[in-house]
């Protein structure tokens, strides 16, 4: 007579130490094994699409900082690019370079947070996270120097950027770009061959290649499953074609591969920064044009490679100063589609590690 056991339903979230913000999972356990997982969203829903309809194009820029609040430069970049494509505005050379420099710095800062918190979820008691915070602090100082804020920069404008770089910015960034590879090697020494991390993340939460494409995953999650797809190469925007860098991918698509892809992407971003620092021209940083942008009727769907994946803006304009409809395609939101398939059969501790490796930010999930 088999022992009669009942599955236990546990609400992990919205207030839980490691659900990266207000994300909730109704998980059904049979002992420690997950037999059912149902993500619940909406606790941080602020109605971005509705807000956009009552604000002018320029007034919406500070709101895009609050989408993926760990990569607000990339959100600004994606939004401004979409409006420029819609309105047909030409951006000066120097502004393009400044935007690429900011986007790549943001990618490094966002990946540092992602890996740090992934390690925290695996149980390392804040030490790797604090080492990565040290490097991120240097980046935040540079963002503060350029835009005046450490998290919500509101730095880019339609047609370029709001400020030119102050004189002491480039030498500081050069110093950072020279020192950073040594720190990334340190992280590898601490983590890459750590047997416990290998045991916790190798072969855990595998997202096969076909399911990754079918569930329209993007960014490091897609590349870790063996799909060589990066919008900076496949659908280049801004001045990315002028830089030589490659796209790190992995094969099995488990938690360890997602962590490794993020580490290598940081190294590639440093390569881009080096080349951008060498090639940045002088000149104006903002296109001439009305402060109040009024794009012609029509629609555009433009996408950039944000740190978390493909950040898309679908804007329908009816010729007035405010967008008629604006939809934000948040990469973290879509990357969660396959969470259920990735977690089934694994244990409680793995669900936390898998969620940490997908690296979601609730601002972008709930919009």
């Amino acid at each position: 007579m088999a022992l009669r056991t009942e599955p236990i339903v546990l609400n992990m979230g919205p207030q839980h130490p490691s659900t990266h913000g207000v994300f909730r999972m109704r998980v059904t356990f049979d002992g420690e094994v997950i037999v059912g997982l149902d993500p619940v969203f909406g606790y941080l829903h602020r109605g971005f699409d509705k807000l956009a309809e009552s604000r002018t194009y320029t007034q919406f820029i500070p709101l895009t900082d609050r989408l993926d609040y760990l990569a607000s430069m990339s959100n600004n970049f994606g939004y401004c690019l979409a409006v420029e494509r819609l309105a047909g505005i030409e951006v000066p050379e120097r502004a393009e370079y400044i935007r690429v420099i900011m986007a790549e710095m943001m990618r490094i800062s966002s990946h540092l947070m992602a890996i740090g918190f992934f390690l925290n979820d695996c149980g390392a008691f804040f030490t790797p996270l604090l080492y990565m915070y040290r490097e991120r602090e240097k980046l935040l100082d540079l963002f503060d120097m350029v835009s005046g804020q450490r998290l919500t920069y509101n730095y880019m404008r339609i047609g370029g950027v709001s400020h030119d770089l102050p004189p002491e910015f480039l030498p500081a960034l050069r110093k950072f770009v020279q020192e950073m590879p040594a720190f990334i090697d340190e992280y590898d020494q601490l983590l890459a061959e750590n047997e416990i991390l290998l045991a916790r993340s190798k072969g855990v939460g595998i997202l096969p290649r076909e399911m990754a494409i079918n569930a329209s995953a993007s960014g490091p999650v897609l590349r870790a499953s063996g799909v060589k797809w990066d919008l900076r190469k496949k659908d280049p925007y801004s001045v990315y074609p002028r830089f030589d860098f490659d796209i790190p991918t992995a094969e099995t698509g488990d938690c360890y591969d997602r962590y490794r892809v993020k580490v290598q992407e940081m190294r590639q971003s440093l390569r881009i920064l080096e080349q951008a620092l060498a090639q940045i021209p002088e000149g104006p940083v903002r296109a001439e044009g009305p402060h109040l942008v009024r794009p012609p009727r029509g629609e555009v769907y433009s996408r950039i490679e944000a740190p978390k994946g493909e950040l898309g803006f679908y804007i329908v304009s009816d010729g007035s100063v405010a967008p008629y409809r604006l939809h934000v395609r948040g990469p973290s939101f879509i990357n969660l589609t396959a969470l259920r398939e990735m977690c089934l059969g694994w244990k409680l501790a793995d669900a936390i590690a898998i969620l940490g490796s997908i690296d979601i930010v609730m601002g972008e999930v709930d919009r």
Partner: protein
Amino acid sequence: MDWLHWIAFAVFIVVFVLGMSMFGIWLERRGVARLQMRPGPNRAGPLGLLQPVADAVKILLKEDIVPERGDRLLHTLAPIVAFVPALMVFAVVPFWRGEGAGLVPDMNIGLVYLVAISSISIVGAFTAGWASNNKYSLMGAMRSMAQMVSYEVPLVLSLVGVALAAGSLSLVRIVEAQSVPFILLQPLGFLVYFLAALAELNRTPFDLLEAESEIVAGYHTEYSGMKFVMFYLGEYTHTLAAAAIGATLFLGGWKGPLLPPFLWFLIKVFALFVVIFWIRGTLPRLRVDQLMAFAWKFLLPLALVNIFLVAVEMSTQSLRTLWVMVAVNIVAGVLAVYLFSRLGRVRGGRVAV
């Protein structure tokens, strides 16, 4: 006359051990902070030394909440059952050389007493989880049962090696028998003891009991106020107890060249304590099934190999010379560790659902 000694020493143990565990809390918080390039507590008192006292006062002022449908009696009993064994372990530990070196240091069944006492705290942890009527605590309680029970076995077997080498169960005899500290004589035994003790205390990398990132705070999620202090202090007292036993059995207790014996004892205890929080500041956590696999597939065989080695050496006269034993054991230890790490796959995996 004995009664007076016992009472005096009982008071000494309670005061000394609680003082040391408060100092241990402060040392760990500053030590892990130093590993993370931050100063650690430095506001309460000079160098933050009064921080544990400030924490204790703050926690005592907190309201002591008992979950509504939780079992009130068990909820109150659990911290006591979890905390007291940690103090009782110090009864047999010899603090310094000579006659009155401990409460009952020369107890002839010292080791057996140690093992018996240290398995009582499991009941405390489990009752706490069960009485809190909270799913996270229940998860924590289930894990605590599985973990602590399965790590008792390698712990005990590693102590067998020590008893064999010293030829007696009394801790005083064991310390005197250590002309060469047993850590050199039985490196494998020390490794098994240390890892099993880490799991017993549920410290990283085995801290599944109160895995913050998974089950919030495990079995003491529903505890606050005085009861939480009992758990928190109990955890540090247990760590000190394990460090004290480790120092006595493997590092030669109070034996040491120049300094007074009591100072040597303290140095060795805090040396082990520093290693424990150094590990805590670095390593991630194992999963439950990996934890079990680690105990049964890795630590247990190593403990058996260790006992076998020591037994062979003790019985054959020719191998009696110490330095030969030390060399043979170290080589055998490294070989066994390498072999078993190749053999046992700890990864474990996905259950078909």
